[in-house]
């Protein structure tokens, strides 16, 4: 699997890696965004409430772009998000 695939999926690059179809890559980028957005919104409803849609999207897209998550447990994304906020505001 080329690094380019995951660069696209994370939103680090819009370059379509050789052999892949852009529509399909967009689905994966969308699904990863949705997975992060839903989990973080569930655990930080006040933060979601405080931001408009564009600000929220900017925040989650940045979180995904800088992701290096390792846990097998999806719920651990919450701890990753706290660590991300701590890093970004340091």
């Amino acid at each position: 699997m080329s690094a380019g695939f995951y660069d696209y999926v994370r939103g680090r690059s819009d370059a379509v890696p050789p052999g892949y179809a852009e529509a399909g890559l967009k689905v994966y980028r969308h699904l990863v965004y949705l997975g992060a957005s839903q989990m973080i919104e569930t655990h930080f409803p006040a933060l979601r409430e405080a931001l408009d849609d564009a600000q929220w999207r900017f925040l989650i897209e940045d979180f995904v772009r800088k992701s290096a998550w390792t846990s097998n447990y999806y719920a651990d994304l919450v701890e990753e998000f706290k660590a991300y906020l701590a890093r970004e505001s340091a």
Partner: protein
Amino acid sequence: MVGVGFRSEMRDWNPADVQAGFYEVAPENWVRRDREPLYRLRDAGHAVCLHGVSLSLGGQAPINAPFVREVRALMDDLGSTFYSDHLAASGDAHQLYDLFPIPFTEAEVVRVSDRIRQVQDLLGCRIAVENTTYYTNIGELTEPEFLMRVAERADCGLLLDLNNITVNQKNHGTVGIDAFVAQIDLERVTYLHVAGHEFDPRFGLYIDTHSDRVERPTAQAAARLAREHGKPILLEWDNDFPSLATLNEELACLQAFTTT
């Protein structure tokens, strides 16, 4: 036999009211959670199969051995004899909590089947791998070729998802269920998945949403495999989760197809 994927919405349902012979759960959801609802299913005489989402058989990070041992402990606790995951990657060297395509290449056959063997050695039993929906992929092999080479080299089981075959056919013009199944060694197939899917005009692609009833041709193909080869059928319904009545109607329909 017809079963259903267990959802938190079903937690307060009486197992006797659900027309399911067996259940499937994601181990990731239960390793750290109170397992009382699963004990109730088991005690009511239903098998509980584990179907994981995070093993990342196609990923670049080493197989997470402590996680596999947690799954083993869960299997022992529930008396589960089946554990499967997807023939997919959950990310590159990191987790992205989705299922990404493994290139259908000879090099990946070798690499991924070695990883499956490693999981089986850790568990002390066979696992099954599921053919997945992919929205774009590369490689010189066809999907059934890739699937069979991996299964034979890893000596693992197959969880055959008929809905995924149909979604891939609609999106990529690949083979339909009958032609796909004709290339599969059914001896390796543990059970079948069926589900519903939806078209998403934003992408111009069908998405494997598990949000609807099963298409009739898919249900009929599953029923034929159930009748002729004794394969159990598992209904996945994860989004727009229906009422008990609607779910029972769908389960009864799948069951009726298998006996007529």
